[in-house]
């Protein structure tokens, strides 16, 4: 019997070994096995946060180039990269500034792809955490992160595909109306913010706490009129009130000779965003976790070597009109570097930048034209690929100005005054003599939040985005939304381009 069976079995075994073409994976994890482990589940959430720091390839919220940040900043009055008459810099950034962008532009596609990859990873995290029965805080974090990305998509593109499970067949993903996306984002946040942790800093530095959740939802309601046609100032105020129980305060501004810009105010943009004012920050460590190129990109080559010890790019500058609005007493004006006696270090041979920019594209600006921004004075390590400054996504100064705005818009300018004054006084300015107007708040937001990624949203909400301004020509409302990238349209016949594009 044994013999007979071995006569049968051995050839069968031999044959199956001879015919085995199964695939073995040696150097990666199988996704299903990996996410079934507790480490895998935990990493699913961390993996969504990993999307936020800016890096090469146009990914991330802020800190690097060619992505969401450039799309939202170069299109405003606060920042532009001119082509130089020495031949430096392609025209992509000047074209963003001059309202000449097109659906096929790389920066536009990068922003879209980054956002939707983030949504995919957030969906994955929600699913993995729920399947694993994770802590409600973690599940809430994943859901709020997803809402955050949809908020950015809604803000930039309006009507966008909405899906919350990666298992959905491609053809069932439909383009949602901007107001439907708004409903999804606001209801997810309403439902899950309360599950978030109330910790500040520490373990929760760089993560969505309950306070960051309220800040996000306040932003959503602040712009509700733009998104849905219906203003929701009261709801915004409601979220701000909840946020205030988190105990935030403005970071004190005092003289600090150890800082190149001489004031502790600039610690808000330093190596680590202080917990007193910062609600949500991006942790950055050059070449390890993201990068912050903002100052390196701004200074000119050899001036970078002199000032910050790294060859700089001679890129972003601040349009003259924007700089000139700042009062000379304003400590926030120190972020601009121009003229013979700029604030900050003046080593021998430092470069004298000129405020005036004669031309953005042809023949381009002179090499030294344009004020530079050194608000994010580089935190070590620094090299020509950037620095390690953290980046504030939401901070309390922003919230106070939002509160002032809502109060004015709901007919309570007298209540709003104190909040605007707090901001002004910290900056070394006098309190307002009269109740603030909407324009005061708009300008104050410009002074306080320059280069922090809020300007396009603010300009749209205040109706200035389509108006002529310096090199920016007046345009129609088409430009209030970015076009859906050509690649996305081509691959998904369910999508319709935004009106006018």
């Amino acid at each position, binding site marked *: 019997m044994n013999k007979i069976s071995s006569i049968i079995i051995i050839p069968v075994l031999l044959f199956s070994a*001879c*015919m*085995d*073409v199964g*695939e*073995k*994976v040696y*150097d*990666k994890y*199988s*996704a*299903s096995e*990996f*996410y079934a482990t507790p480490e895998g589940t935990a*990493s699913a959430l*961390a993996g969504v*946060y*990993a999307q936020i*720091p800016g890096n090469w390839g146009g990914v991330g919220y802020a800190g690097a180039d060619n992505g969401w940040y450039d799309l939202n900043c170069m299109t405003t009055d606060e920042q532009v990269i001119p082509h130089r*008459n*020495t*031949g*430096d810099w*392609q*025209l992509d950034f000047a074209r963003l500034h001059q309202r000449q962008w*097109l659906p*096929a532009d790389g920066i536009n596609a990068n922003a879209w*792809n980054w956002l*939707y990859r983030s*949504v*995919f990873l957030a969906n*994955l995290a929600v699913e993995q955490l729920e399947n694993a029965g994770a802590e409600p805080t973690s599940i809430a974090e994943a859901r709020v992160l997803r809402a955050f990305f949809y908020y950015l998509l809604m803000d930039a593109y309006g009507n966008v595909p909405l*899906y919350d499970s*990666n298992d959905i*067949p*491609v*053809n069932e*993903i439909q383009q949602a109306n901007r107001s439907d996306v708004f409903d999804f984002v606001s209801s997810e946040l309403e439902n899950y913010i309360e599950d978030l942790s109330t910790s500040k800093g*520490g*373990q929760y*530095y760089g993560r969505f706490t309950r306070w960051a959740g309220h800040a996000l939802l306040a932003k959503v309601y602040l712009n509700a009129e733009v998104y849905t046609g219906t203003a929701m100032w009261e709801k915004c105020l409601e979220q701000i009130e909840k946020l205030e129980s988190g105990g935030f305060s403005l970071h004190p501004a005092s003289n600090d000779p150890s800082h190149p810009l001489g004031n502790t105010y600039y610690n808000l943009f330093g190596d680590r965003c202080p917990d007193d004012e910062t609600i949500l920050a991006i942790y950055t460590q050059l070449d*390890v*976790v993201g990068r912050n190129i903002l100052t390196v990109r701004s200074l*000119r*080559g*050899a001036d970078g070597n002199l000032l910050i010890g*790294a*060859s700089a790019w*001679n890129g972003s500058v601040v349009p003259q009109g924007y700089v000139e609005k700042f009062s000379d007493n304003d400590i926030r004006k120190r972020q601009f570097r121009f003229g013979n006696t700029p604030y900050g270090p003046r080593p021998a041979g430092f470069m004298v930048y000129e405020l005036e920019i004669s031309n953005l594209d*042809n*023949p*381009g600006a002179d*090499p030294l034209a344009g004020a530079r921004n050194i608000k994010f004075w580089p935190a070590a*390590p620094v090299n*020509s690929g950037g620095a390690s400054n953290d980046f504030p996504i939401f901070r309390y100064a922003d919230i106070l100005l939002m509160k002032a705005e809502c109060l004015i818009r709901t007919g309570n300018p007298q209540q709003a005054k104190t909040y605007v004054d707090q901001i002004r006084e910290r900056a070394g300015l006098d309190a307002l003599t009269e109740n603030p107007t909407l324009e005061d708040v708009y300008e104050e937001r410009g002074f306080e939040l320059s280069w922090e990624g809020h300007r396009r949203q603010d300009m749209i909400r205040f109706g200035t985005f389509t108006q002529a301004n310096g090199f920016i020509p007046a345009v129609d409302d088409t430009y209030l939304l970015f076009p859906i990238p*050509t690649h*996305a349209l*081509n*691959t*998904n016949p369910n999508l319709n381009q935004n009106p006018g594009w």
Partner: protein
Amino acid sequence: MKKKYRFKNFQVKWPIFLWMLALSCSQIHGSFAQNQNNYSGTVKDSLNEPIPGVSIVIKGTTIGTVSDLDGSFNLPVRSDSDILVFSFIGYVTQEIPAQNNSIINIELLEDMVGLEEMVVIGYGTAQRKDLTGAASNITSENFNRGAITNPLQQIAGRAAGVNITQVGSEPGTNPSVRIRGITSLIGGNDPLVVVDGIQGNMDLLNQIPTAEIESIDILKDASATAIYGSRGAAGVIIVSTKKSKAGVSTIEYTGTTSVDVLANRLEMLSAEEWRRQANLWGVPASADFASNTDWYNILTQQGMTNNHTVSLGGGTENFNYRASIAAILQDGVVINSGNSNYIANIQATQSALEGRLKLSFSLNNSIRNNQGSPGNIGRASFTSNLISNAFVSRPTDPVFFEDGNYFSDQNVFHYINPYAVAQTVINESETVNQFGSLKADFEIIEGLNINWFGSWRKINHNSGYFAPVSSTIPSAIDQNGIANVSNNRTDEKLTNLSLNYQKDLGHHSFNAIGVYEWQRQTYQGSFAQSKGFINDLTSYHALQLGSIDRHLPGDISSYKNDRTLISILGRINYNYNDRYLFTASMRRDGSSVFGAGNKWGNFPSVSAAWRLSEEKFLNGFQAVSDLKFRVGYGITGNQQGLYPQQSLQLVNASGTTYFGESLINNYVVSQNANPDLMWETRHQTNIGIDFSLFNHKIGGTIDVFSATTNNLLFHYSVPQPPFPYGSMAANIGSVLNEGIEVSLNYSLLENKDWSIMLAGNFSLLRNEVLSLSGSLNGVELVTNNVGWGMNSFLIEGYPIGTFFILENDGKEAGTNEERVVDRNGDGIIDQGNFSEDRYIAGSALPTYTAAFTPKIRYKRFHLDMVWRASGGNKIYNRIRRDFSMYETLGISNLLQSAENLGLFTTQYASDLWLEDGDFIRLDNLTLSYDLMNLNSRWFKSSVVSITGNNLLLFTKYSGLDPELNASGGSGTGMDFGIYPRTRSIALSLQFSF
């Protein structure tokens, strides 16, 4: 005198000794009766020169001998009806009935048309006259000579439909070869290479001493390649190395030394011209560093190529061996670039059991050292190879600062000094290749053989890179020096077991073979990088001396993946009366790289041939010497181009992230997995005719083929959302290649003093992307106008790499900005992939290739030429665009031709930079003198030759060289800056003694 005499004496005795040895062996194993009489005589060629080494066998027996140096032979008589068969490669085999005629002097005719030669067809050989598929065969006497570093260079222009392209002359780089066009988009367009049974990728060719190759066979159509199944879709190159012959002992030396110079250079602005233009265009004076540097000149030099091979071999009837050592040494025309390749090879064959068992054994080792000119460097706006950065550097920039350091201008973004890079960056690699194979062939009964073959190849590729601060490369400055090493190992194992049966029954003759084959290729390796060195002394040899603070994720990594291919195949050849020939083959392949349910594919083929010249009704036509019609159809598959693991959802490391107050590893889903991945299949039909007329004076082959690749593997664009990545490997579209190939030769003159042979080939090729869109898991994918390089696209209905481009419309007066035509008149210049402002302006793929290879002999002088032509394609001259814009004058040099254009800037990549790629090149001109049988008898043969390579080039293309990336992959037909192509003069010596 005495010495010479003694040697002569020895020379006479030596073949006799071998002959006696052979004879004694025959006597031991032979079955014939001891006999009194011998056949003897001499074998000579048409020039009355003796031919040594001709095999003379009594038909139907194993009794035989070979001719000696005088062409004479001696063979015992067996019976009255003995027929002697005289055969020698390159000559027409003759059968002479002996009929007691004991003195037989014969003249062997050179095989002018090659219809009789043996062709290697995959798992066997066939006589050319019996072939039913399309194949080209090039034997060593037709190989190109000169500065040869790779076997493919020896056959460039020699086979119709086989396009061999050399891009520049960078030491250590290999030509690319495309057989019958671009069949796949994902890769896998490289043909399979088979060297004496060992299968491999193109790099296997680097391991073969060029002088040791006897013949190269190229299988082109599916009925010929289907036997190689999945690996044969893009054609098969079969290399047969020289084997020693029984009774002949040889030492051969082949050596070539060539001097290589720049064939062409671009006309850039001189310092003076740059200065004048800078003033004109308002470049700030601060950009002028008041120097005068010819960057291209200081980065180039006279190159040199050496190729030396010594081989020895010998054998008896039951044993033969051959061993060779080769050195291929190149000093490039760009400073500090070079390559050396040393190859040692030994093979031996032993037969036993009365000749029924034959064991063949081979071992090969090669060590290749490469000193590479750094590639992919430059500023953000222009990255290319090192030498092309010479175009960027302003002629007014000095090479050195006054303090002796390399010059660098910190105010130019990412400035690099190419001379500093060439002198300070170390970029070297060593590749050790080894293979061994063993083949055992046993005749079970007459006509039935069992054969086992096993081969094992190992490749160890180690490379080291060091960029010090002094290199001026920005990242090296930032990191205070960067050093890295990488080690890559490849292990390729193959084994097969085959059963072969051959039977002749009157007019019917059968040959059947069945094979089981298993192969696995394993790839693994590691990478380590270190940064922050306090000095440059240790290069990349001491990574531990870097600074630990600068260690980042990605600085160390390792990988391993493999692919397994299992095949069962069979083939039947049937031959009726040498007139009707049929071949049918079937191969079933399983590959590990596909989705779980789709690993196996079937690849059948059928073909037939009709030798009309054997028919009675053509007997009256004396003009027709040989005529054969062939028709074949077959299916082949592609899996080699597909990277493993793409059917699986995997998680990989992706840098570091900050979470929970600490830096932790980040993991990410690494790709859009497609569990449905399956075989890409190519269906090919071939119709051919082989003819030979007027007593073989005119001969030729014409083939017409059509091949459709279905289930086209490609990284298709998928919608984002929901996919996390923009593309996914899938089987959707299809691509068509169809063409016609003509090879002709004409023996114009053939007599004792003169021989003139005109030969040439011509192929037309049409490529079309039939479809790219289709259904993926039931979802319609709209994939069209996929970018394939700057302005070149994959567009349904057009060839791969079609230029779909904006039309230049001069420039704006005043601003000197380029203007393009708004073709749809909507006031917006849309640069999207579907833009109506674009138009179809030709394709990156050549539509015709041609070669003319005349051979002229006068007495002992031979003149060989290879003229090659190719065209019908367009080239996007990115170099000309980059160096024609005055906006960059302040930071870059420009072409002299920029002045006529007078363009300041452009937002577009228009057809202004699109040029015709047609060219005719005198690729090779060789004059050789055959010293055979000089008064000395030391040498069996010796040839001296002088070769000029790339002597003439006729083209309208304005760049360095019109022969550019023709791989068919993304970037085909773009000129991003190439390593210069050289013109070389080579002196070769060939001795055999």
